[in-house]
């Protein structure tokens, strides 16, 4: 027995062999891994289809070992709707950033959630536009400097950052809506549980599910990967509280 070697944690099968294009320390990679581990653990790799967004994760289809579609900017929830309605037996997830989901795709996400479309959304919030080079996002924090808000986000003209999880959980339609973060192992473990729970609701054909994941962008924040984690904890966490905002069971209790 003592000679046996058990692999207790390794690269998930649902991740492809490709090396990601993400910058060193970008937590997109962690979130990819959490989704892939979830797919492996739930045994759904062969019946999963992903929808990639426009944003830094535009090439997500290269990193997962599952069928994929590439959406136009913001339209992933509409695409997922069309696919899932015709193949309710498949497991569908979209992977979207804050520009994609909370800005140009606001209409699509609200209505998909409101119709109770039974797919899962992984919403990556790093408070900035990564792909296009660090411009202001709808989730950029008040006073946060970006290339299009060089003096810091001015809430009198740009408004306050949108809290998507709270906004979506105000809808009457049953759903699973949660917010997690990946800046610390403890929170990563919590994020994994939330993502797994989201997929489980879909497998049970229960409801729309969305996990907002607070993520870092060391390159556009101009901070080292480890300092980025601290920045997230210090600045994003107070504005974006973590937790589970809505579950389909809430509805049952209310009745």
């Amino acid at each position: 027995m003592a000679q046996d070697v058990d692999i207790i944690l390794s690269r998930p099968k649902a991740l492809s062999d490709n090396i990601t294009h993400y910058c060193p320390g970008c937590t997109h990679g962690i979130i990819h891994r959490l989704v892939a581990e979830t797919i492996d653990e739930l045994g759904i790799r062969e019946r999963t289809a992903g929808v990639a967004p426009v944003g830094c994760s535009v090439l997500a289809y290269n990193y997962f070992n599952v069928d994929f579609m590439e959406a136009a900017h913001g339209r992933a929830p509409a695409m997922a709707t069309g696919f899932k309605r015709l193949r309710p037996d498949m497991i569908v997830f979209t992977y979207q950033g804050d520009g994609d989901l909370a800005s140009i795709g606001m209409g699509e996400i609200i209505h998909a959630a409101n119709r109770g479309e039974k797919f899962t959304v992984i919403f990556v919030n790093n408070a900035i536009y990564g792909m296009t080079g660090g411009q202001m996002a709808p989730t950029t924090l008040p006073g946060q400097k970006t290339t299009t808000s060089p003096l810091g986000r001015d809430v009198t003209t740009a408004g306050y950052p949108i809290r998507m999880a709270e906004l979506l959980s105000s809808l009457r339609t049953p759903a699973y809506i949660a917010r997690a973060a990946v800046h610390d192992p403890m929170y990563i473990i919590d994020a994994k549980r939330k993502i797994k729970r989201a997929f489980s609701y879909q497998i049970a054909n229960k409801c729309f599910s969305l996990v907002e994941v607070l993520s870092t962008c060391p390159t556009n924040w101009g901070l080292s990967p480890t300092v980025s984690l601290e920045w997230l904890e210090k600045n994003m966490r107070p504005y974006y509280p973590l937790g589970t905002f809505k579950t389909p069971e809430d509805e049952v209790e209310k009745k």
Partner: protein
Amino acid sequence: MPGIIIDKLYCKGCELCVHACPMQIISMSKEINQKGYFYATVYEPSRCIGCRICAITCPDAAIEVKAHGTHFTLFKY
């Protein structure tokens, strides 16, 4: 006895695992990999407790955790 293997091809040298390791047994290599940068390595493998935190933190799924024989974990993942 637990241990970790870091795939130096996948490692991008972000150092998140170095800071995450509770035993502080990971550091950056003294030599560069094929792509030209320093990568994470374990310099005191015998002190590894197999907690998996490095692998959980790694954005590039470059770390594999192994154990010989029965291994108890402190938390579920």
